[in-house]
């Protein structure tokens, strides 16, 4: 795979080879062909961090089962929880029955004696495939207002990736305890959207101007304009703490500084970015923007 961050895993890019230099092996192929690609190889544990629905995961699960895998772990999503007036989302709460991940969870629970499912939310960390804090940094370093739909009071959960990896590792280390369980794979704090903007600004050592808007009134699809859900989207990692003895270490105040340092180091602060959607919103709100 030539695209970042995948190219960091094994190809020699500035000597990164993250997985390989850690003693791991990388094998590239299509999940549907996994049996062929990994012919002859046996594993104790399989973790599917790729599939979002049964069509994609089934070949992997079936192959794992037939090759005698002892523990099957699946990265699901906290997005499957039904919205609630009573946050947080806790393991066992109602999920959207038609969600792809739900179908997978059901299948693996029926297929494997020892299985666990992990439901993450948003994460930060080096090599993230999806913009998170970067979305805020892009605007803050360029002195542009941060446009947040709604009140900005929406609660979300943003975890440093090391919290996710430590939870997964614990499940591998404690297979009996983890077996048959669902774990919200998130940090142990919620942050408001406004709060996240302010923390990013603090990390950058710069001021921030937050502008709220009503997406409907402005004629904008908030999903396209903003990388977080426009609602409370807040799960807590209660099962991991109780069952695995996991503790969270995410501290956005500290972690975002490290993230900002990398943001600058890779030169993204100097990158030319077009803020078409932002400008559209601002025009609708008639807010002047310094050019």
């Amino acid at each position: 795979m030539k695209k970042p961050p995948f190219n960091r895993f094994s190809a020699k890019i500035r000597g990164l080879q993250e997985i390989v230099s850690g003693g791991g092996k990388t094998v590239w192929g299509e999940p549907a062909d996994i049996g062929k690609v990994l012919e002859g190889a046996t594993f104790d544990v399989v973790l599917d961090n790729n599939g979002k629905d049964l069509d994609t995961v089934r070949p992997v699960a079936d192959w794992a089962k037939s090759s005698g895998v002892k523990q099957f772990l699946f990265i699901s999503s906290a997005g499957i929880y039904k919205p609630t007036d009573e946050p947080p989302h806790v393991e066992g709460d109602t999920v959207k029955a038609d969600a792809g991940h739900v179908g997978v969870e059901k299948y693996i629970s029926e297929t494997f004696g020892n299985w666990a499912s992990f439901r993450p939310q948003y994460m930060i960390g080096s090599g993230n495939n999806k913009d998170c804090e970067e979305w805020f940094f892009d605007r803050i370093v360029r002195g542009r207002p941060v446009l947040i739909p709604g009140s900005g009071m929406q609660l979300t959960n943003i975890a440093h990736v090391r919290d996710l990896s430590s939870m997964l590792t614990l499940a591998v280390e404690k297979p009996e305890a983890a077996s048959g369980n669902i774990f919200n794979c998130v940090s142990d704090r919620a942050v408001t959207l406004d709060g996240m903007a302010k923390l990013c600004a603090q990390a950058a050592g710069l001021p921030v101007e937050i502008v709220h808007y009503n997406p409907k009134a402005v004629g904008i699809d908030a999903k396209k304009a903003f990388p977080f859900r426009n609602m409370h989207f807040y799960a807590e990692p209660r099962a991991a703490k109780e069952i695995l003895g996991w503790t969270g270490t995410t501290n956005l105040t500290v972690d975002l500084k490290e993230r900002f340092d990398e943001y600058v180091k890779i030169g993204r602060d100097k990158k030319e970015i077009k803020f078409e959607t932002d400008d559209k919103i601002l025009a609708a709100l008639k807010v002047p923007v310094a050019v």
Partner: protein
Amino acid sequence: MASMVVVQHKQPSSTILSSSLSDFNGARLTASVQYKRKVWQLKGALRVTASSSKKILIMGGTRFIGLFLSRLLVKEGHQVTLFTRGKAPIAQQLPGEPDSEFSDFASKILHLKGDRKDFDFVKSSLSAEGFDVVYDINGREADEVEPILDALPNLEQYIYCSSAGVYLKSDYLPHFETDAVDPKSRHKGKLETESLLASRDVNWTSIRPVYIYGPLNYNPVEEWFFHRLKAGRPIPIPNSGMQVTQLGHVKDLATAFIKVLGNEKASKEVFNISGEKYVTFDGLAKACAKAGGFPEPEIIHYNPKEFDFGKKKPFPFRDQHFFASVEKAKSVLGLKPEFDLVEGLTDSYNLDFGRGTFRKEADFSTDDIILGKSLVLQS
């Protein structure tokens, strides 16, 4: 000087549990208590006694939390004295409480009449009596606690009802017991009390509830919603209605206070005590409607800055996110709240507002100010 009146009773013998707890007590409370009895019977004990019956003083105890706590303590076989000015009756029958249970409680509860602000009296009366454990339910300032500690040098435990209001406001929630506190908050007296307890050589435990609700609540929490629902009025909620808060049932709080009694794991520890789930303001309005069997309410959002309400409070909650993690109590004490929100509000409604009782008369004056302006804007 207030006179000291302590009625002497025989120490209660073997009883702990009544085999049938009324719905007033909540069926779920029987579970753990019945288990205890079973264990002793299996061991062939002839007399079923509390692990050790203690002489307990409750500062306050006649208004809300103490009503439930004192009953639990008496049922567990402890000798319980309430320190109050005597303005409210020491024993008042609670809604749903069977006569037999009430008369049993009334015959056992003791009264020490006095003003806790009279520090000399507090010190002399307490040291004359001697108590094993103090539950301080109505303490607000640190100086109120000093004479109690001075009077009882052999005190086994000082259990304090503090408040989650001591936490410093944060964008990063929930509040954990280790979070920063606000020395300037309205509840700084509670903080100062906690500091005093920590600085003295006493075995203390501090409980920090969030918003407490339940039958006989004197703080218009659920009552505020019930008045409007009953009147068929819209519910005015400030700003987005997405603010997340947290309610804890008073019976669960009383259970928590029992759990920490004589519990080594609670020694010199602070615990947040409240419901396991939080709730948005809008969600709370809907939950109250469900609890009282009302149709789904009409909610009106407004910007409080656009109005002048004078001295009146238009809404009974802090206009911010405010919730605390109760994980520590769960993992350290094994404490799990019995009531979820709708169940708890239903309990409150059935035993209080739904019977026609409430503490404050309905006052819709601030609602009308809001609605008046809203109507104007709509036309």
